[in-house]
Each structure stands twice: as C-alpha cells, then as structure tokens.
C-alpha cells in the first residue's frame, strides 16, 4: 500500500495558463509574443474538487454517489475480513432551507488503524485497494470526495468512529485541506465505553454533512441502488434510514463469496512501468532479471523466464543493472510469447449459491403515498420480498483485454415477479444508468427467446397487458435477468462507469451464457406458460359463462344455478385434463425452483361453485400439509388455493 502511495504522490498536475491571445500561431506579422506561461502544481484534492465530474459527483447525483461510495466501502471492508456485513445507512435532511443533508454509514468491517485514518479518509489517491484484485472501489477517491465536499460546502466536520483490531474505538473530527490534499484533524480521542458507536470487535462509522439537492428521480435511483445491491449481497444486512422511513434488507444466506486474492500481474500485461516496479521491489535482494521475472509475474516458470531473457538477447546481470532500452526488449518479447491464461484467484464472482439466494428473495422498495388531510402527501417506505417460481444460473470465464473476466447470468421467473427487468452488475456494483447502450441489452435482444421453447406469439398472447408496449416479446415475460461481469478491468463504455461496452468476445460469452440459461429453463418456462395459458382460459370461462347461461336461461326454462355450476365444473374438468398432460417438472439441479410452484389459479368466485368445490379444496389443503412434512424445502407459503387436482395427481405420482 505505501509503495503505491509513494509512486502516486509524485504525480503532479500541471495547468497551463495562457494569457489573452497566448500562443497564437500563424501570425503573419511574425511578431513573437513573449507571454509568460505559469506552471502550477495542483494538489490532488483541488484537482478532484475542481473536476468532480470525474468521480461522478455532479449536481443532482452528489447524494446518490455518496450513498454508493459509502455502501461499497462498507461492503469491501467487511469482505476483506470475511465477516458477514451488517450495514447501517442513513440519509436525512439536516437543514432543508440550505439543502443540507446528513449522511452516515456504519459497518462491521475491519475499520482503519487510528494512525492511518485521517490520511485514508481525507487524502485523495490514498487507498488500500491499489492491488491486482477485484474490489468495488479502486481509486481512493470516493470517501475523500465526501470529505472534501463536506469541507467545501459546510462548516461541519466529518465525524468518524473507527475500531480496528487490537485498538480501542477512536473518534475523529476531520476536514480536508483542499489546497494541500492533507487532512486536518480537529479532534482525535478514544471513545469512552459509554459513548461507543461500534458494538462489535471492529467497525467503522462515518457521518458527513453535504449540500445537495435530491430530485425524486435520483431518490428512486438511490432506492434502486440499495435494493439491487442487496440482490447480489444477500449475505449482508442492509438498513437504510431516510426521511421517508426505514427499511431493512435481511440476510438471506450466510454464505459469503470466496474473497478475492491479490495476484501477480500477468506477463501479457507487462509494460515498462510494471517491469521497473518489479525490479525496484527486488533491489535490496540483489536478484537477477530471471529471478525478478519469476517472482513478480504469474504463469512465469523458471524455464519461461530464461527463454524470455535469451530471446531478448540479454546477458544475465543483476536486475537493476539494465537500462531502459534493454528492458523494453523484455517487454516486447513478452508481448510475443504465449503464456497460460491468467488465473482468476483475484476475482470474486458472486457464485451460484449466493446469486440464487439473492434472486429467490429479491427485495423491492415500495413507496406508499399517504394522503394526510393536514399535510402534503407523504410517502412511506417499505420493502416487499419477491419470490420467483424458478431461478437459474450460468457462468463463463473468459479473457477480455488480457484480463480474466467472469460473466455470470441469472434468471428469475414468475411468482411475485410481474414484469421484465434487466439487472446489470459490474464487480458486484449495480449499474443503473445508460441501460440502452449496455452490452447486456444487446445480448438480450439478440438471443432469441425461442431457445426457451416458446414463441414470441405465445408470449405476447398470454402476457398481453395494458402497460407493456413493446415489439420485443421478452419485455412481456415476468422475468428478471441478471448479468454480472467481474474483472479487474471492466470495459466501461463511458467515464461515468454506467454501461459496459461489447469489448472483444465479451458479448459472445454473455450470449452463450444467456442461451445456456434459456435452455436450462425451457422445460420449466414451457410449463409455466402452459399454466398461464390455462389460467387465462379459466378466466375466460369465468367471464363468459355468465353470458352463455343468461342467453340460455332467457330462452328456455332452466335452473340458472344448476346450469352455472355444471358449466363451471365442466370448464374446470377440462382445464384439469389439460394440466395433467403437462410434463413433470424436470429434476435438473441447475434449475432451482422456489419450492412447490403455485399454479395460482384463481379461486372459485361464484357461490355455487365454491360449494361444489369445498370438498376438493379441503382435500388439497390436506395434501399440502402432508407434503410440507415430507419436504424439507418448504417455506412459509403464501400460496393461494391452487389448481386442486393438478396437485392431487402430482401427489399421487409421488
């Protein structure tokens, strides 16, 4: 970490100031203007504050970015230590007249040692994350941005509580000296037991006051961001407290992803800078170039290293005895040498178990508008758990831009999911903007849905509704598709890091991943579709039978009740036969079905019918009870009365 710090500290930003019509070339009078150019060095902090857009901190988005940075830091610091995250996020208005907000985030991560803390919080380009492994944050800018903005716009200090291992809990009041990129420590003290903020062995809490505006659109983006984060981090407890209410995203699994390991750079990625840095690291040990190569790069066997030195036509000396011209030959040789594909230890994909846990219990933030008589309409926040009827997962490992990249894709279908939605994640961070230009969108357009064994026409017929107006059949399906790309170098399309470009073979791998999933769920989806079809059909019967009965009973003398119930029974019998001809659910492991699929056929509505049906329904309840005893997987089910005899037949088959 400190090595990196040294390297980066020397970075200076030069600004060229041109006075008036400065260096106007092509002046045919041939007068040389001797304008003075002033060279300034700008502190990193000043640079980032002046160019806050580089870090995404622009007007409307300040609070969104602050939430993002704090949440990502918190998750990272928990995962480093492999503790199940427990994160408390607050965002509240402090002074509405002056647009002041108070934002705070508390986690149970490793915290920051008290001696490093002020620098780590306030000094730009200081980070423990400058290593070759997948992490959410990478640049050491986010938290500093919050600190700098709080210093710039308010007179409130940044308040930090931190407890790292083997240390008591410390409290800090900090501000950033923007001109020098140095922290100003207003207060530092050990927190008394009675005033402790951090309950556990370690943890970190930061509280900042920011001046910002929050539009409803951005507010929704914040909610989306948190709920989507919870989808890929189902092992975390996230509590979000805002003026609109407080919501908690519970922990749905205690499995955590295997933490990413730091790895050596791959030789195909070598350049003069990495090579010199490697040599510098070994300078005290008097190692040869051969040794440096072996120890500093992955997939570099002794033999391979020798081969490279020979190919570069260099004699063996101590590593630091080569000049640049010689070293560049090593780099060039490496570019032309074949190495094994880079390993993926430094990546931390979500994994099937965790993504499935996230998908089978997806949280959606719900805003309930309450109309009080006295006050303006108030929204009240709550969460709803969406349980799909089936999920599936697939992944691919590939090399994009010389970097190993893992593509993960998941599908959640049916159940509580009512409409289509695409979720995009890069290194476990949800991408919320620019969906239209993202490679995932293209992938979904290009993979035909008939891979699921269903036709566009069928889908549009069965899922026709008033809200969806789209040519793409997939938009009608009650399905959520999740794409997660992880790599140490995500091919973002823009500096805003909100959409991913179709770099190299990425698209091809994503397509094969999605096709794979479509195939996996095809039997299930077909079945679901058939169920849906029958559901719609039963609805049709229910809507039209009264017309038929009326027409008949007006024309001839007939007992209306008798005819109605007979017709309803007939319709149900008919549907039941259709259902029993459905294929059984495949027992494929990859497809994780949310316990017993509720076929969710609407309950009988007419009195006559329920009378006739009461017997069958109660017997179904009985079947379900016995089933619940037998099946471990069963969870508390909010299943409505389902298509009775379909289940009975199923139970019989068992």
């Amino acid at each position, binding site marked *: 970490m400190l090595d990196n710090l040294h390297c980066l500290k020397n970075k200076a930003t030069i600004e060229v100031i041109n006075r008036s019509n400065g260096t106007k070339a092509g002046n045919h009078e041939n007068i040389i203007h001797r304008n003075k150019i002033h060279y300034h060095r700008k502190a990193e902090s000043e640079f980032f504050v002046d160019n806050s857009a580089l870090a995404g901190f622009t007007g409307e988005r300040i609070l969104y970015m602050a939430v993002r940075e704090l949440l990502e830091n918190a998750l990272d610091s928990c995962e480093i230590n492999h503790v199940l995250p427990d994160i408390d996020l607050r965002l509240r208005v402090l002074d509405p007249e002056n647009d002041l907000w108070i934002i705070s985030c508390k986690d149970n991560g490793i915290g920051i040692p008290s001696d490093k803390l002020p620098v780590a919080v306030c000094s730009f380009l200081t980070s423990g994350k400058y290593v070759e492994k997948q992490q959410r944050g990478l640049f050491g800018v986010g938290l500093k941005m919050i600190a700098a903005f709080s210093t710039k716009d308010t007179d409130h200090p940044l308040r930090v509580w931190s407890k790292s291992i083997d240390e008591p809990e410390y409290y800090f009041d900090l501000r950033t000296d923007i001109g020098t990129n140095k922290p100003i420590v207003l207060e530092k003290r050990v927190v008394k037991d009675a005033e402790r903020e951090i309950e556990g062995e370690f943890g970190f809490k930061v509280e900042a006051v920011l001046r910002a505006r929050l539009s409803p659109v951005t507010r929704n983006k914040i909610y989306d961001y948190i709920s989507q984060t919870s989808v890929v981090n189902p092992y975390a407890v996230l509590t979000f407290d805002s003026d609109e209410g407080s919501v908690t995203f519970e922990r749905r699994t205690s499995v955590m992803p295997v933490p990413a390991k730091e790895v050596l750079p791959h030789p195909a990625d070598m350049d003069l800078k990495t090579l010199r840095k490697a040599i510098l690291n070994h300078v005290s040990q008097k190692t040869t170039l051969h040794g440096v190569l072996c120890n500093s790069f992955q997939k570099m066997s002794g033999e391979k290293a020798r081969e490279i030195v020979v190919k570069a036509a260099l004699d063996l000396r101590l590593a630091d005895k080569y000049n640049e011209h010689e070293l560049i030959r090593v780099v060039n040789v490496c570019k032309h040498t074949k190495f094994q594909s880079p390993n993926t230890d430094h990546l931390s994909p979500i994994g099937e178990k965790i993504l499935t846990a996230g998908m089978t219990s997806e949280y959606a933030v719900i805003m309930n508008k309450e109309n009080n008589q006295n006050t303006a309409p108030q929204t009240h926040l709550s969460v709803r758990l969406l349980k799909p009827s089936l999920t599936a997962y697939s992944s691919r490992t590939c090399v994009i831009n010389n970097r190993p990249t893992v593509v993960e894709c998941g599908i959640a279908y049916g159940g509580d999911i009512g409409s289509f939605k695409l979720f995009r994640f890069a290194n476990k961070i949800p991408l919320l903007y620019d969906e239209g230009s993202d490679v995932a969108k293209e992938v979904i357009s290009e993979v035909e849905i008939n891979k699921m064994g269903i036709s566009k026409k069928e889908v549009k017929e069965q899922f026709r509704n008033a809200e969806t107006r789209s040519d793409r059949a997939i938009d009608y399906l009650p399905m959520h598709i999740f794409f997660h790309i992880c790599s140490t170098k995500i091919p973002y399309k823009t500096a805003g890091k909100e959409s991913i470009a179709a770099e190299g073979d990425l698209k091809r791998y994503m397509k094969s991943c999605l096709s794979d999933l479509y195939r996996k769920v095809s039997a299930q989806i077909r079945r679901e579709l058939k169920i849906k*079809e029958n559901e*719609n*059909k039963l*609805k*049709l*019967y229910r*809507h*039209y039978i009264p*017309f*038929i009965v*009326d*027409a*008949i009973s*007006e*024309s*001839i003398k*007939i007992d209306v009740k*008798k*005819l109605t119930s*007979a*017709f309803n*029974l*007939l*319709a149900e*019998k*008919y549907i039941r036969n259709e259902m029993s001809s459905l294929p059984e659910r495949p027992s494929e492991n990859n497809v994780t079905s949310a316990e017993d699929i509720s076929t969710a056929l609407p309950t009988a509505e007419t009195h006559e019918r329920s009378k006739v049906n009461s017997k069958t329904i109660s017997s179904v309840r009985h079947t379900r009870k016995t089933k619940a005893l037998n099946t471990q997987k069963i969870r508390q089910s909010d299943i409505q009365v389902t298509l009775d005899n379909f289940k009975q037949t199923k139970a019989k088959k068992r």
Partner: protein
Amino acid sequence: MPTRDKGHQDVIRKIKSIMKTISDDVILKQIMPSFEVPKIGYDNTVWSDDKRMLTIGNKTVLIGPHSAKKIPTFSQYLVMANAIRRLLDEEMESTIRGLYYATLSTVGDEKNKQKFWNSQEDSDNAIKAIELITNVPREEFSVTSKPKGMISGPITLRVGGDLIDCNLGSRATSQLIPTNIRDLEIVDVKADLVMVVEKDTVLNNIRKSGFIQKYNAILLTGSGEPDRATRMMVKTLNEKWKKPVVIFADADPWGLGIALRYKIGSESLSYDSDRLVTPDAKVLGMMFSDIYEYNIPEVARLAATEEDVNRAHDMKKKPWLQDRKWKKELNLFLERKEKCELDAFFKHGFKYLAETYLPNKLREAGVI
C-alpha cells in the same frame, strides 16, 4: 292480440332447441357443447358450373368453448341467438346495427375489461352464423339494414298495406327499395327490361333523360355495394317476372366486382346465393374497351392504382371470368392501366350516356 307469425314461431322454436341441446350437453351429458357452422369466406366458396354462381363449400368450423379462442365466439353466438329470439317474441324488427347495440356489453373484471363485441363486424358475423345454424335467412328474423337500393319505372309494389307506383312519371325521383322484404310484394311489372346501374347519380341522370318512358325500362341501383333486398328484387324480376336484366357499372375492377355481385354472388354471402343471385343478368358495361371506342378524353380517365391491378390479376384467374371477351377486357386494362367511371360520358354531353351509349350497348346485346 294479433296472431303470431308462423315463420317467426319456427325460428323461435329452432333457437330454443339449440339452447336445449347445449344445456343438456352441459348438465346431463357433461360434455363440452359445440355446434358446427359452415365456414364463411373465400376459402369455403366454390364456383358451381350448374348454377352458374358462387356457392358455399362443405367446410365447417366447430364452435364451442373447448378452445380458448372460441370461448368468446361461442358466447357471442348464443347471446345473438337469444337477442333474435327476443326480437321475434316482441314482434319488433331491427337493423343489424340495432342488434349490435342491443347486445353491447363488457366482459371481464375491473382490471381486464374488454368489449363483448370488438366491432359491429363481430355481431354481423354472429347474425350470419345464426342464419346458417337455423337455416333461416335473416329477413325472417326481421333483421334488416338501412335501405339504400333505389328503383324507378313501370312497377307497382305493395309495402305493408300501401301500394306504391314506382313509375312516377314526373321523372323527379326514385323509390327506395324497402329492406324488410317480408312486408314487400311486387304487384305488377309493366316494363320490358330491367337496367341495373352502379350508382344513384348515374341512375338519376338516365331517369331524367326519359329513358324509362322511351324504352319501357325499370332502373335500379344498389348505390354501390348492393344490399340483400336489391339483389333479391333483381332476381325476382328476372326469374319470376321473366324480364331481361342488364347491368352497367364503372370500367374498373371495383365496378366489375359490383356487377358480378348481382350475376354470380359474393364470397361473404355465398351461403345464400340461391336467394340473391341472378345468373341470367347480362353485364354489358362499361367495358374497358369502351374507354377507347367511345373516345373518353384522357382527362376523364383515371390511373389504375396498385390495388386495382392486383384485383384484376386475381379476377383473371377466376373460373367465372374465363370466356374470351372478359380475358380480353382484363388484359386491356392491365396493359393500359386506365379506368373510367360511367359519369365520364358526361364529358360528351349530359344526354350522351342515356341517348347514345346505353342504347348502343343494348342494341349490340340484342336486348332492344
């Protein structure tokens, strides 16, 4: 209390027996009810060489609630049958539009509300289906449409209790052909010839010129697409009263189509051709060749549209247009891609059509 119409009673009995069969299927036999209806449309219309007209083929469709798509249709047919029964019970009459309104409704719950009929076309189809199922033409149901056919000439009709002499002498107006043909009777026909034209404007021109008196003719028009009453009137005049029938329509594929409605029938009403079609009617004009023979000036000709051309290509394939004369005409049209309305003769003078063109054509055909 007037005695009930026996024909009406038959229809009511037929509808009731259909209802009974369905309720028996449901309650007693516990099977999905259904009925077979002859299919209506181009793919179930066949040309009969014998009858020289379009007749309905033997394809049928099974309508019943067994398939999701047919559930609405099945209900629609029953609702319509019941509405017709009610209409007859109440001894009222109605247009097809009236029946559409009488049965308007919505289907489904609040969340998913739909119209019972998507459009009047659905309800018209249901009426057709009831005609086919009961084997009774819609006129017997007292289901009619708005009259639009017109007649003028030496013919006396009785409509209800009133005698109407269509030979109004004054040359001033024509009589509308009533659509409730159950109440219509032809009392006397003194004419030698029946001439059908496509449009009322042309009919008015001919009437005004004294054509009726000069040639002792009845003039008739369906004002475009003829309704059932007009077609039946033409048929009766030809077959019962033995009057020769000649037809003049515009020289374009559309006009030719209308002329053929009288002569060979149409695809959508092919099930009722026996009552509607006049195979002995002669289509005399306006021929495509007449455009050039009668020197219709270029400004009065119209360019054929793509649709016209496609229609003409279609017509060339039809078995009833296979004689040499028609093939030649259609080829001429396809070659020149020009069409013309009867009104174009007015360019030659307002009396030219009635005093030169029509007599010429009638003489050529040997009708006068």
